[in-house]
């Protein structure tokens, strides 16, 4: 069995999620390699060796500097062919998902996503997929090789294990359409304000607030509870609240004692960032909102009346 793990990097570091998938792959046995694609990435292979990679393929080229998916499809497709790779695994990210799907189409290969685990079964691989808003666990398989798998963010933690980490450089041939998109700017978000990751209580706001000014409702409640404020991607993208407060797949993962979600639908990508909160309270006017499937207490109602009142009641308790 030969497995290749895509090793995503940022700011001179291999990403934790990729290393976690790599160590998982190493624990399954067989030939396990990692692939690093970028410019000036020579020094990163060491980290991969520490997580079980026997071989680290490195494509280092100024043309590969921008973290865009399509040139990476070229690179990985080439490795799969040259090295007879049977399985290609990715840790979920904005970049990885687009590479995995592009690769599936290029190679006519099966892609299973939202994987939370993987195991060998005889000579075959079986993935655990959490589907339909986590209401069912599906054992998924691949009918052909190469197999492609995309693991859910935070599916496992990296574990250290020694691998030979033999570095092998390669230069992918890039297709014309792969070079058509160009990165104009990469703005790195500033971290401002207190970190929500350490907060004991989090009050989070989503698009149900209706307008950016209404974040004041969430802030007041957070203040009364001595907690921090978080937000969904929908409102962060819309500029209602800073990026540093975003919870979810692309944002922060938090596990406070109490998480109060106001006007948040509970999409899976938000859920993966807050589901390990000890107690979840949700206020949403739509009785069918997915958040009610996993909130300890769900209140179907209008946040504009409930939240101010709740703040008042909490304050009153504090005083008395």
């Amino acid at each position: 069995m030969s497995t290749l793990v895509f090793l995503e990097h940022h700011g001179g570091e291999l990403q934790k999620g990729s290393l976690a998938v790599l160590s998982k792959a190493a624990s399954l046995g067989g030939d396990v390699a990692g692939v690093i694609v970028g410019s000036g990435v020579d020094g990163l292979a060491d980290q991969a060796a520490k997580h079980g990679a026997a071989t680290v393929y490195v494509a280092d080229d100024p043309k590969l500097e921008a973290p865009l998916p399509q040139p990476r499809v070229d690179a990985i497709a080439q490795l799969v062919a040259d090295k007879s790779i049977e399985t290609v695994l990715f840790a979920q990210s904005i970049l990885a998902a687009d590479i995995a799907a592009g690769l599936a189409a290029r190679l006519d290969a099966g892609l299973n996503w939202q994987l939370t685990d993987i195991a060998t079964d005889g000579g075959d691989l079986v993935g655990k997929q959490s589907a339909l808003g986590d209401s069912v666990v599906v054992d998924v398989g691949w009918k052909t090789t190469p197999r492609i798998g995309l693991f859910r963010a935070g599916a496992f933690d990296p574990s250290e294990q020694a691998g030979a980490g033999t570095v092998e450089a390669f230069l992918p041939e890039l297709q014309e359409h792969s070079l058509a998109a160009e990165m104009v700017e990469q703005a790195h978000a500033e971290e401002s304000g207190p970190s929500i990751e350490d907060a004991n209580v989090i009050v989070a706001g989503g698009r149900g607030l209706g307008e950016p000014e209404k974040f004041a409702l969430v802030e007041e409640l957070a203040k009364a509870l001595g907690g921090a404020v978080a937000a969904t991607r929908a409102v962060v993208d819309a500029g209602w609240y800073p990026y540093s407060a975003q919870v979810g797949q692309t944002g922060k993962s938090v596990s406070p004692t109490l998480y109060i979600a106001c006007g948040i639908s509970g999409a899976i990508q938000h859920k993966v960032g807050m589901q390990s909160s000890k107690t979840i309270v949700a206020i949403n006017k739509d009785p069918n909102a997915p958040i009610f499937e996993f909130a300890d207490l769900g209140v179907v109602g209008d946040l504009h009346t409930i939240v101010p009142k709740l703040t008042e009641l909490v304050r009153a308790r504090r005083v008395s």
Partner: protein
Amino acid sequence: MKIAVCVKEVPDATAHKRIDPGTKRLDRSGEGALNAFDANAVEEALRLKDATGDGEVVVVSMGPERALNSLRKALAMGADRAVLIADDGAAGSDLVATSLMLAKALEREQPDLILFGQQSSDSDGAVLWAAVAERLKQPVISQVAELTLEGGSLTGKRQTEFGYDVIRAPLPAVVAVADSINEPRYPSLKGIMGAKSKPQETVSLADLGVDAGSAGEEGSHTQVLALSDPPPRGDTRKIEDDGSGAEQIVAFLAEKRLI
């Protein structure tokens, strides 16, 4: 400018979603609806059409015959035409097979721009666009929260794990929008009435030149082996706010010793 929007019919939000243990496929017997995330893509297409003054917006979908009902919502919003790939041989298609059929249908249309929604609410894949772009050999930009079109190229701003990217690509191109990109319009009564008479074409695999072995379950490279229940999460309580919602939250928090 011609814009194609890929949209999908999904089980209605009120329906209890389940996988049929017999067929191991999503049970689509209940009410269907246009995937809400795709309304953002339709809206963006309509705005671009309005901004450029002329053009055509065509929605393209793969699904059962009855999905035309859901496509009509996109027509009611203002899309000009619908193309539905409906064929018994297409049922049970995974990413590889679906992307092939869609790519074939899109090749017939030759749009300048192809838009996708953020994700389908029944698969949460958020991946299909990249496979379709690969088949069409076109550039792709995903998760776009702001889209601008200038001359023959487009620029998308999108969020990643590390901040914001601004990516530019020449047309023709594939763009998947984020749900934050716009607020989809509600179809007007006139739009709803007019939708019925807009062109709605159903095409088969044969029409697209896709052979049976490349579609449906046969053309799929993944399979469902078994289904099981997820580990139970503690009790969930859901109450209707009758004016005492805030008090009930306080009582709950007090009971849990959280305040």
